[in-house]
């Protein structure tokens, strides 16, 4: 059993949960995730470790609660317990000092991006962080990301905060400006966003890393459910990833596989009285 130390709402349907998991907190590196199962009979859900405090023995999880299972997880109050937290899983992010880098986060992907930005900042990179969402209500972690970044840019689809439009617009400006062009780009968010970023940086040959969120069951390299095509080869996101070279990822295939259980999820949503959305855990 893993105790929930705190649980706060950062934005609509987005919770920041601090969970006591001393071994995971000690072993964890940026880019890794945990498999979480709230209780007997519940799904195993992969969640990125947003941050960790090895001294306090806690990990921070950012959870977008729009599926039946994640909604039940975030209903757990401080002092309550999560039955299973296993990790850290996946490979750690390759961190080096590139010099100028761009970190692009879309929606809850910003939460996955956060530990990367932190590690990149610690390695001395000059970071331009670009985060986006549908409206200002979906812009998260800007206070946390701002001190780690040289520049923090915000884009919203409705223009309620920052520039109006998608995160790709400010990134495009950076790529076109010889003074600001990044040596590496990290992008985490919805698949179409990551695909668009990959296409933008491909022409200039800029190293681009994405963190993928395929369907997983065990997360330990046993079931093969999280397979993605990378450079024409089958890779398993749980052991070979979750981060991959964006220029080699088959995003269309990933998108398709993410819809495998849409019908079953719709039934569960109806059962739990939720009207919209689809389970995207990370």
């Amino acid at each position, binding site marked *: 059993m893993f105790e929930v130390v705190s649980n706060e709402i950062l934005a609509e349907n987005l919770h920041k949960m601090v969970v006591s998991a001393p071994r995971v907190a000690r072993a964890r590196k940026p880019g890794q995730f945990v498999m979480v199962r709230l209780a007997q009979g519940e799904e195993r859900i992969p969640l990125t470790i947003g941050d960790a405090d090895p001294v306090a023995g806690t990990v921070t999880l950012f959870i977008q609660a729009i599926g039946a299972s994640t909604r039940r997880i975030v209903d757990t109050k401080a002092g309550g317990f999560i039955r299973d937290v296993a990790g850290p899983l996946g490979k750690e992010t390759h961190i080096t000092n590139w010099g100028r880098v761009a970190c692009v986060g879309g929606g809850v992907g910003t939460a996955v991006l956060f530990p990367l930005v932190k590690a990149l900042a610690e390695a001395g990179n000059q970071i331009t962080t670009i985060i986006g969402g549908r409206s200002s209500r979906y812009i998260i972690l800007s206070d946390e990301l701002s001190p780690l970044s040289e520049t923090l840019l915000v884009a919203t689809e409705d223009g309620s905060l920052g520039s109006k439009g998608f995160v790709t617009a400010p990134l495009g400006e950076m790529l076109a400006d010889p003074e600001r062009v990044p040596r590496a780009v990290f992008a985490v968010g919805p698949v179409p966003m990551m695909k668009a970023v990959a296409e933008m940086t491909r022409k200039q040959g800029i190293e681009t890393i994405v963190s993928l969120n395929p369907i997983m069951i065990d997360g330990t390299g046993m079931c093969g459910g999280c397979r993605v095509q990378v450079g024409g080869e089958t890779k398993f996101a749980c052991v070979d990833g979750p981060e991959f070279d964006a220029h080699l990822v088959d995003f269309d295939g990933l998108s398709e596989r993410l819809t*495998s259980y849409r019908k079953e999820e719709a039934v569960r949503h109806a059962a739990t009285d939720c009207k919209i959305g689809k389970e995207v855990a990370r």
Partner: protein
Amino acid sequence: MSNKLSAKERMAIERAAMPELPAEERSRTFEEVNLGLDSEQALAEARRCLQCKNRACVAGCPVAVSIPEFIDALASEDLPRAAQILRGDNALPAVCGRVCPQETQCEALCVRGIKGESVAIGYLERYVADWAMLHPDQLLHSKAPAASGKSVAVVGCGPAGLTAAGELARQGHKVTIFEALHDTGGVLRYGIPEFRLPKEIIDREVAVLSDLGVTIELNVIIGKTLTISELREEFDAIFIANGAGLPTMLNIPGESLKGVYAANEFLTRVNLMEAGRRDDSSTPIIKRAQVAVIGGGNTAMDCVRTARRLGAERAMIVYRRGEAEMPARVEEIKHAKEEGVEFVMLTAPVAIIGTEDHWVSALRCQRMELGPPDESGRRKPRAIEGSEFDLPAGVVINAVGTSANPLLTATAPDLALNKWGNILISSDGETSIGGVFAGGDIVRGGATVILAMGDGKRAAAAINDYLNRKHD
């Protein structure tokens, strides 16, 4: 009828038939298929044993169960003693009585099998083990061993790990099992379906180990949560039995389509996560009327029989050799056929065909014929040109095998591996690191429960020797 029978009288008894749920009824439920012998059947079967001196059957058992002795106790209606003998040799007898391929092991060497039918050793093992589970108050307990003061870490709570843990605990060592998943049993729980091995049996076998003082820590992934070097600081010896890993892909077009499963994913969803078995399970599973399972082993049989129970009208085994070459147990093939599974033999997949919206619609196959034997001794299949055809299927399950899991070995650079990533061991199970032993699928690649258990038992003996030497 007493146990004082002449050989002639023993020879006159016919082998017991295992009572089964009717195929019609069981092919739609996850209830256990084999119901177990009743007491009359069990006594009669035990009395078929000739109690021969050379104990050929024992040599065929990877964990060397004292077969004639436990059968003799059973024939004498002394079940407490039968249970004591059996449990003394085998940490998981109720499991082995259900899933061991006795027909190629102990029973294959039974003298009675030369001219007739061998003694149904597996049925008797199950009978005694099940009796023991239901009569804990009547069990004879060996004296608790003196604590050795030594500690052993066991990596993995599957058949090899559980067996080693039981053996080591009985030697007085303090054993901690580390399990990556959220529940015990390893492949016994995530891999083998309920209709062959009810989960309750695993729970009870594990409870016996807990009573012996074995500690089980779930959700700990060695290689990730803790490393082998961290375990070495804390424990006097380590046994690695973390099992098989990543599925072997078919490497044919269409493997990314929706509705294509690797056997482990399909079975884990249903067995471990209870998808499709319980209405309130949170984990979904794709159910279709036509399901094609590729492979001819026990895992393929488990998948196809599970698909049938999930409602498939047409559940098919697609195998590139013939039925005689199938590695699956004869009993599994028989049960699958009774349950309406179709066997599409001498057929190899060449591509998985999808719809416009990326769902599986068919398995494109080609017919094979058998040529001369290959290095495995089985006749090598070769493709018949121009024989391609499409088998309609909404779900395709790949049950061709697995490769070594890299999670532990990736963070233990001193551990010597073979070219496939399996851990190399000496004859007594020791790895290239002193005090670190290994067994089961991480050493063998894909094998059986009982071979893994044999590894666990052998390694436990070697670990015990190692700890005693270390003490001196």
